């Protein structure tokens, strides 16, 4: 029982971190059908800049805010200089964002050196809660709470606000929304920056969680996030949330019981979804075929 609950908590918190990365990805794809490979680069920049600011200032809050600001700045540069010139051309988008990913993760090594960096937990989040022999690490609970709050905020933004309405309409039918006089490109920039902020936040939260950050992390988590986005259905926030939890929890259990197969499991999930229901669990718009 103790193991079960621990694995569940681990899985849910990892899943929510992946969700932060996947949320931006799925909205960006849904709105402009841009599959942004550089998204993982923003994530790893969030992780490193968060860890660095925390080390320099000793303030966790400042670290998170700083990471988000840096992530958004980089996101703006990406959108403006890499993605905008290749709107509407899928092949070139894929190729160019992969180049963006390469530059982002390599430039990490220029600023912080090629070796992994150790990251400490902030004091007030250290330690663990204990209930009848079940030990739950505090920081994981913190990640879960933040993740759930962000999901709620995103959901409210999408379903209750004017801009959310426009985004949802844009995901459904971009041309129609454009014809109604809404600036879809401006909307897209907003969504892109939102996604960048979420990715950087996810990275900043992950850094103390895994205890160590390294430049190749971006690609690893980007692949996880892509798997999640495809499983959940491109463009669907709920789908991504559900798939993140599935991938996170299944990964935690697999890593405990059959560690060698944990990556293969995600691949298997991805392959099954792509072959059986290419639109993903909750995807409505456009099929993968």
């Amino acid at each position, binding site marked *: 029982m103790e193991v079960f609950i621990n694995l569940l908590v681990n899985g849910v918190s990892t899943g929510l971190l992946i969700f932060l990365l996947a949320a931006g990805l799925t909205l960006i794809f849904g709105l402009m059908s841009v599959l942004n490979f550089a998204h993982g680069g923003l994530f790893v920049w969030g992780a490193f800049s968060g860890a660095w600011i925390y080390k320099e200032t000793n303030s966790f809050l400042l670290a998170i805010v700083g990471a988000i600001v840096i992530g958004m700045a980089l996101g703006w540069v990406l959108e403006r200089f890499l993605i905008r010139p290749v709107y509407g051309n899928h092949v070139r988008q894929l190729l160019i964002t992969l180049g963006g990913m390469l*530059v982002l993760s*390599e430039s990490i090594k220029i600023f912080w050196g090629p070796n992994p960096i150790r990251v400490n937990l902030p004091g007030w989040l250290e330690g663990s809660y204990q209930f009848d022999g079940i030990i739950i690490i505090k920081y994981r609970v913190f990640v879960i709470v933040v993740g759930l709050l962000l999901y709620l905020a995103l959901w409210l933004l999408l379903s209750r606000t004017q801009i959310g309405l426009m985004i949802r309409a844009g995901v459904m039918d971009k041309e129609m929304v454009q014809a109604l006089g809404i600036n879809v490109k401006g909307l897209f920039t907003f969504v892109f920056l939102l996604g960048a902020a979420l990715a950087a936040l996810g990275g900043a939260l992950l850094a103390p969680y895994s205890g160590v950050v390294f430049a190749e992390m971006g690609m690893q988590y980007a*692949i996880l996030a892509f798997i999640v986005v495809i499983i959940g259905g491109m463009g669907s926030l709920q789908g991504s949330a559900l798939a993140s939890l599935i991938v996170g929890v299944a990964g935690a259990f697999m890593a405990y019981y059959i560690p060698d197969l944990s*990556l293969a499991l995600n691949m298997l999930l991805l392959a099954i979804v792509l072959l059986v229901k290419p639109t993903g669990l909750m995807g409505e718009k456009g099929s993968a075929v």
Partner: protein
Amino acid sequence: MRGLFHKVPLYWGLAIMLFMLLFPFVNDSRSMLILLTQIFIFAIFAMSFDILLGYTGIVSFGHCMFFGIGAYSTAIIFNHLEATLLNFMIGLAIGIILSALVSYIIGSLSLRLKSHFYAMLTLAVSQLFLVLAEKWRGLTHGGDGFTFSVPDVFKDRTSFYYITLISVAVVFILLKLFTESSTGKVLKAISQNEYRAEALGYKSLHYKLIASVTAGVAASFSGALYAVSLRFINTNVFSIEVTLDALLMTMIGGLGTLAGAIAGAGIIEFLRHYLSELAMTYPIFERWTIILGFLYIVVLLVFPSGLAGFIKRINLKNKRKMKKKGELQRVA
């Protein structure tokens, strides 16, 4: 054979070939021969990638898996059996058969997907191969890798230089014939407009499968040569950097021109060589990958058709100018 060289002038190709054949007599510096050998090996790899991206319009982010399969097949054979040419052939054959099988299975399952999904899926599968190579320590010795001995012909730098040079020429001719064949024409049609090709009655999935198996086999061959050239292997052959190399080389050289892929391989390897030499005096160049990354992005944005397209455009301009001059003279 007619039309084989109608895009790359035959005499240019022959001149370069002749120069390369004579090169070891002119300059037998070891490092230069090694660098050129490396270029030839990657030229084969880049050409195989060009069949996918340039000729058929398939974006694969997992092309390193075929390179790695070829490299590991040969390395493992040499690790367990004696270093003879026959065993090299066996290793090569195993690698090629495995690559053909893997590319066929992946292709038939996922080539019907849209480009995004296919790119993702291939990336994920290639990562799976990386994990497999790391975990299957009994066969691969994990991330540390292992060294092995190779036949004497391959050990001699000059003879290996000639072997790789001839390999490039043979692969170039074979792939050129392939792209000029009727199958190749259909591939080109698919890359330009898949729906129209389908409407004309060509099953695009079938043709895309042919392209991806061809590319997988050629990549596997280059991987085998790569393993032999290093006499050492580790899991790096499955890393995303290998796929990125192929991307850079084909993009910089020019998509859809096999000669461009060769030129791209030369440019990238030379750059890498000199940048890493520069890094000894200026540490900033230690991160030369980022320079390649910027170069790649700039090429994509500014010269989307690569070096080959750039040359073509200049030629076209010159021709137009000449034509105009001629007309003016006639008017006068």
